[in-house]
């Protein structure tokens, strides 16, 4: 109580991260079903309601779900701060589900009644979440790169959510638009993806890579430089967007951030190659796929500035959201979940009864099978969307559905591991 940051045992109750983690692939199933049902149509215009629904099934349903669970779990370990009012996290989870379903449902069924529900639920969920995490992170004195990155991520999310709410209200006629739709949209996407998602993955990557794969540490000076360049670009791009700047100016504003992202990617790649542990597991492959998709997505985005073909936007979206964000979060679940189960349920029993090992809580065969499905989904959806080939997109949807379903089963398998009580 007296001095936060002193207690080292601040992990949240296990059900809190788990409920977020398990929900993510369920939304993955919904997203996959939507792609399977509509085929290449969902990749015909980013202004379509269906496409916006799909995007948020993935961004809010998958990526944010895992990010929220990870924030609750990792802030005490990585930043050393206690997350306040931890029981409220269950409320956050509940209203996220309601909000995402109402948002996607409203957009898909064009049902105006659902939008106020979506707005209220999402605002409630994000307000509680952001208040909890920002309180925790601003209480910590340390300015380690990961803490800075997490703050950037949370503040970007706060702005992105506000803009998203403004926009959905404007689109559905709940209130008049404040500024031009495309400006709000571009700002919303920039803040949500580069600040919100990019910020967290990069910040956590600084620590997680050395920790899980026994690599050399991420050079601290370089980490700080990367974050500064990223922040600069985030601010500069936002200003340019608000002033409807042209492609050259926008690209110039993006450049430091893109360069920093590439340096991050190369550094982590190098660290992985030179890691001390030589074992190869599925999580390592998930990281590698993510690290390939990340710079490729930025390439598509940059080319799109000068050659505004919508298909490039879809390539960007697929590479960034499914290839990078969903893949890396997927891989992280396979490191975090077995360990949490072990830690919460078995660690105190060591030496007293026989406890399972991590590989028994979640066998490698299960994870590598799902990895293959996830990779095949990417490899089919991407050309399908770029070349606008319907059957390829639907085949990709099937791989994606298999992958999501498999992840659900794997997580359930792990959650079922309980100590045998026959003492």
């Amino acid at each position: 109580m007296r001095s936060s940051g002193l207690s080292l045992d601040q992990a949240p109750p296990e059900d809190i991260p788990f409920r977020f983690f398990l929900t993510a692939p369920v939304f993955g199933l919904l997203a996959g079903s939507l792609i399977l049902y509509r085929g290449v149509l969902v990749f015909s215009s980013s202004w379509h309601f269906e496409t916006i629904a799909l995007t948020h099934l993935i961004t809010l349903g998958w990526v944010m779900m895992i990010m929220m669970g990870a924030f609750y779990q990792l802030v005490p370990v990585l930043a050393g701060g206690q997350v306040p009012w931890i029981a409220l996290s269950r409320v956050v989870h509940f209203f996220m589900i309601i909000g995402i379903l109402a948002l996607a449902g409203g957009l898909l069924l064009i049902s105006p009644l659902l939008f106020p529900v979506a707005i209220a639920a999402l605002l409630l969920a994000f307000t509680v979440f952001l208040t909890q995490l920002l309180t925790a992170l601003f209480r910590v004195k340390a300015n380690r790169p990961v803490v800075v990155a997490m703050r950037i991520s949370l503040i970007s999310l706060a702005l992105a959510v506000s803009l998203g709410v403004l926009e959905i209200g404007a689109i559905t006629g709940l209130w008049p638009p404040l500024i031009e739709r495309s400006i709000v949209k571009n700002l919303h996407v920039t803040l949500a993806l580069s600040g919100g998602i990019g910020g967290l993955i990069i910040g956590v990557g600084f620590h997680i890579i050395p920790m899980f794969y026994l690599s050399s540490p991420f050079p601290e000076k370089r980490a700080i430089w990367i974050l500064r360049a990223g922040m600069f670009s985030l601010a500069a791009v936002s200003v340019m967007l608000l002033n409807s700047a042209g492609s050259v100016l926008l690209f110039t504003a993006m450049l430091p951030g893109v360069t920093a992202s590439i340096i991050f990617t190369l550094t982590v790649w190098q660290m992985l190659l030179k890691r001390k542990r030589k074992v190869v597991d599925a999580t390592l492959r998930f990281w590698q796929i993510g690290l390939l998709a990340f710079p490729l997505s930025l390439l598509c985005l940059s080319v799109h500035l000068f050659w505004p073909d919508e298909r490039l936007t879809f390539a960007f979206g697929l590479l960034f959201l499914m290839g990078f964000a969903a893949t890396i979060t997927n891989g992280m679940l396979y490191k975090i979940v077995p360990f949490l189960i072990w830690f919460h349920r078995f660690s105190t029993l060591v030496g007293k009864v026989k406890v399972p090992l991590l590989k028994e809580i979640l066998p490698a065969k299960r994870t590598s099978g799902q990895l293959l499905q996830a990779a095949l989904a990417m490899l089919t959806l991407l050309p399908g969307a770029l070349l606008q080939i319907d059957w390829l997109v639907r085949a990709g949807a099937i791989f994606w559905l298999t992958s999501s379903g498999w992840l659900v089963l794997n997580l359930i398998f792990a959650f079922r591991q309980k100590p045998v009580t026959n003492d």
Partner: protein
Amino acid sequence: MQTINEYMAADHARCDQLYADAEAELLSGSFEKGREKMLAFEAGMRRHFEMEEAILFPAFEEATGMTQGPTMVMRAEHVQMNGILAQIQESLEIDDPDTTLGAGETLLMLIQQHNMKEEGMLYPMVDQQLTAQVPDLIQKMDAIE
């Protein structure tokens, strides 16, 4: 002047390397060499625990009066790690490299999150609260066999 955090983090890295070497040998199928290296890793771990439990933690507890605080949590995790180390030893005795590797991986995750907490919180606190004693503490820990 070397800080406690630097000194102890270097020892963490040394133990990590010992583990990685042992794991690599076992993975490549050379069980005898793997066993030898795994035992070296085990010795490294036990020495590290002793440095903390015999010297560093008592000094911290005495200086701050906190016996039920961070050091208590760290000691409890040492007990858990010792439990898995025993499992590793057992598997080495009965020539069961699969279990050695599985237990090793489990132990490694436990070690990593443990080290993260020590390097992020506990050691910096020691450096701050016991600044004057740092060289002496390091000398005493160095002397441990």
